[in-house]
C-alpha cells in the first residue's frame, strides 16, 4: 500500500509565490469540496471575444438590404416594433446570425481539440477528412435524393461521423498516433473529394449548381431548424469537450507520460476524436464546409494566450466572431451580390495559413 505520509504543510505565506502558473487562480469551495483552476487571461479573452461576437450578432440583425438602427432591433425584442421589422429580424436575420455563431463556435472547438490531439498546429477537420466526408454524403443526398434540408443535414452528419470512424479504424495500429491520423486523414480527404467531383460531373446542371453552393459553405436562408440542430449539438458536445480537457492536457505530454500519469490514453484519444468529429459534423451539416475557421480560430487564440491554456471556450467565441464577421461582409460588402460565407473565410483564411507555413519554415519546426 501507499504509505506516503501527509505533507508537513507550511503556511503559504512563508515562501514566495504559489507554484501555480502565473495568471492561474483556484476557485475553491470547501463546503462543496470543489476546487477549479481558472486561467485569467483565457477568461478575459473569452469574455472580450464573446462580447465582440455579441456585437457582431446585433450588427448582423441591423445591417443588410434593409438597414435599421440598433434601437429598431431592440424594439423587436421588446415587442414594440412593426410586424415587418419583426419579420426581417426574427424570421430572416436572427436564425442566420445564430447559425453563423454556432457554426463558428463548433468548428473552432473541433479544430482546437484536433490540433492539440495531433500535436500539430495545421490540423483541422477540413484537413483530416471529416468535412470531406460530410460533403460527399451531402452531395450524394442532393444528387441522388431530392436534396431537402432534412436529407442534406442528416446525410452530412452521417457522412462526417462515418468518416471519423473509418479514419479511426484505418489509423489504428496498436492505438492511434497523431501523425498517422493526419496522414490517413489526408488520404481520405483526397479520395472523398474525388468522389464528390465525380458525383457533380454526373448530374444535371441545376443540381450541380445547388451542390456547388452547398460546397462553398453558405448561410443563406437558414431557418430556426438549422439553429436548433447546431445549438442542440453544441449544448451536448461542448460540455463533453470541456470535461475531456483534463485528458487533453495529459495527452499533450505524449502517450508514455500520459499513461505513466494514470491516463487511459487510447480511450481518451478516441473520445476526443469523436467529440471533435461530431462537433465539426454539426457545423458542416447546417452550413456546408465553411473553410479555414477550424484552423484559424484556434490559432488566433493560441497565439494571443501564448499557448498557456487549452482554451476551448475562447476559441469557440473566436470562431463565432469570425463566421459572423465573414457572413456580415459576405452579405453587405459587395453591393447587390451576396457571396457564400465559405468564399470569404477562404479568402481571408488562406493568406493566414500561408503566413503560418512560412513562419514555421523559418523557425524550422516540423
Amino acid at each position, binding site marked *: *500500500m*501507499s*504509505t*506516503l*505520509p*501527509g*505533507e*508537513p*504543510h*507550511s503556511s*503559504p505565506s512563508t*515562501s514566495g*509565490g*504559489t*507554484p*501555480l*502558473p*502565473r495568471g492561474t487562480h*483556484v476557485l*475553491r469551495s470547501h463546503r462543496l*469540496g*470543489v*476546487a*477549479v*483552476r481558472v486561467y485569467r487571461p483565457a477568461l478575459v479573452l473569452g469574455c472580450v471575444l464573446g462580447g465582440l461576437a455579441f456585437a457582431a450578432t446585433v450588427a448582423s440583425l441591423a445591417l443588410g438590404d434593409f438597414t435599421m438602427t440598433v434601437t429598431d432591433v431592440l424594439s423587436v425584442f421588446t415587442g414594440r416594433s412593426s410586424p415587418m421589422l419583426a419579420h426581417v429580424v426574427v424570421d430572416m436575420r436572427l436564425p442566420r446570425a445564430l447559425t453563423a455563431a454556432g457554426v463558428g463556435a463548433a468548428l473552432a472547438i473541433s479544430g482546437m481539440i484536433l490540433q*492539440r490531439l495531433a*500535436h500539430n*498546429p495545421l490540423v483541422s477537420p477540413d484537413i483530416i477528412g471529416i468535412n470531406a466526408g460530410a460533403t460527399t454524403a451531402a452531395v450524394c443526398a442532393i444528387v441522388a435524393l431530392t436534396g431537402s434540408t432534412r436529407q442534406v443535414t442528416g446525410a452530412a452528419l452521417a457522412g462526417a461521423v462515418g468518416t471519423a470512424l473509418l479514419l479511426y479504424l484505418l489509423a489504428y495500429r*496498436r492505438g492511434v498516433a497523431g501523425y498517422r491520423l493526419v496522414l490517413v486523414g489526408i488520404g481520405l480527404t483526397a479520395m472523398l473529394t474525388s468522389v464528390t467531383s465525380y458525383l457533380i460531373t454526373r448530374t444535371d446542371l441545376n443540381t450541380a449548381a445547388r451542390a456547388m453552393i452547398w460546397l462553398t459553405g453558405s448561410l443563406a436562408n437558414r431557418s430556426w431548424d438549422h439553429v436548433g440542430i447546431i445549438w442542440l449539438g453544441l449544448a451536448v458536445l461542448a460540455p463533453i469537450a470541456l*470535461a475531456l480537457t*483534463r485528458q487533453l*492536457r*495529459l495527452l*499533450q*505530454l*505524449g502517450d*508514455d*507520460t500520459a*499513461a*505513466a*500519469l*494514470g*491516463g*487511459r490514453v487510447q480511450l481518451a484519444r478516441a473520445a476526443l476524436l469523436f467529440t471533435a468529429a461530431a462537433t465539426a459534423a454539426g457545423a458542416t451539416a447546417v452550413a456546408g464546409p465553411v473553410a479555414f475557421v477550424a484552423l484559424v480560430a484556434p490559432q488566433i487564440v*493560441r497565439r494571443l494566450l*501564448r*499557448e*498557456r491554456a487549452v482554451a476551448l471556450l475562447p476559441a469557440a467565441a473566436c470562431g463565432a466572431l469570425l463566421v459572423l464577421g465573414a457572413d456580415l461582409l459576405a452579405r453587405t460588402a459587395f453591393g447587390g451580390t451576396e457571396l457564400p460565407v465559405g468564399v470569404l473565410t477562404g479568402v481571408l483564411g488562406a493568406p493566414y495559413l500561408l503566413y503560418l507555413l512560412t513562419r514555421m519554415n523559418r523557425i524550422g519546426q516540423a
Partner: protein
Amino acid sequence: MSTQPHTTGGRIATSDLTLGYDGSPIISELSLELPPARITCIVGANGCGKSTLLRGLGRLLRPRDGSVTLDGEEIARMPTGKLATRLGLLPQQPLAPDGITVSDLVGRGRHPHQRWFRQWSRADEAAVRSALDATGLTGLSDAAVDELSGGQRQRAWIALALAQQTETMLLDEPTTFLDLAHQIEVLDLLAELNSEHGRTVVLVLHDLNLACRYADHLIAMRDGAVAATGEPAEIVTADLVREVFGLPCEVMDDPLTHTPLVLPRPGARKRR
C-alpha cells in the same frame, strides 16, 4: 527538500515476464527482483531490450505472458489511476507542449492525485513547490520549458515525476543528450532522492561507469536476457563487459568511489 515525503520504496518483481511488440518477443520468461529503496541501473548494448524491460515494469507495455508485481500486487490488475500514485515513469524523450511553463509542466505531475472537481489542493501546491525546490527550478517556474538548457529541461521532467510523489520512479536514459556535468547533476539528484526519501529508483543508463558509480544494484542485459545481476563491485568484470557489450577492456578500482571502472582497450575494434 524536507517537504518531499519519506517512503519505504516500492518492491518490483517480475515472474516469467515475456514482452514484445509485433513478431517474436524481445524479452522471454524473465524473472527478476529489484531491491526496494535502492537505485537499480539497467545496462546493456543498444537493442538488448533495456527500454522494453523498463516499459514493461512501468506498464507502458502489457506482458504477453508472466507478470510484473509491485509490493506483491500484479500491476496489470491495478486501476491505472491508483498505480500512477505509486509508480512513476519518465520516458526517454518526453514531449513538452508548445510554450508550456515549468510550473505548468510540473503541476501536471499531480494528475493522478486530482479529480475534475478537485483540480488543485494544498497538497498539490506543496508537492509542486517541493519538486521545484528539490530540482533547483524554483526561480525558473515561470520560464518556458522550450527555452531551458538541456540539463534544466531534464530537471523539469524529473520534477514532474517528483510531483507525482510515487515511492518508485522509473527513468529511461535520463542523461541522454546531456554533457558530462549535467549527467552528474541529474544522477546526483536521483541519488539524493533515493538516499533522503527512500524512493526506489530504476533507470536505464548507457554509461557503464556512471552506472557502476550510482547503482546499488545492476542488471546487465544481453539479447533480451539478464547476463548478470547484483552489486556492481561483485558482477562487473572484463569477461562480463566482453559478453554484454562485445568490448575488450580492463576493469579497475575507481580510486574515488571504489566502484568498478571500465577502461576499453585501445584499438578494440580491430581485435573484436
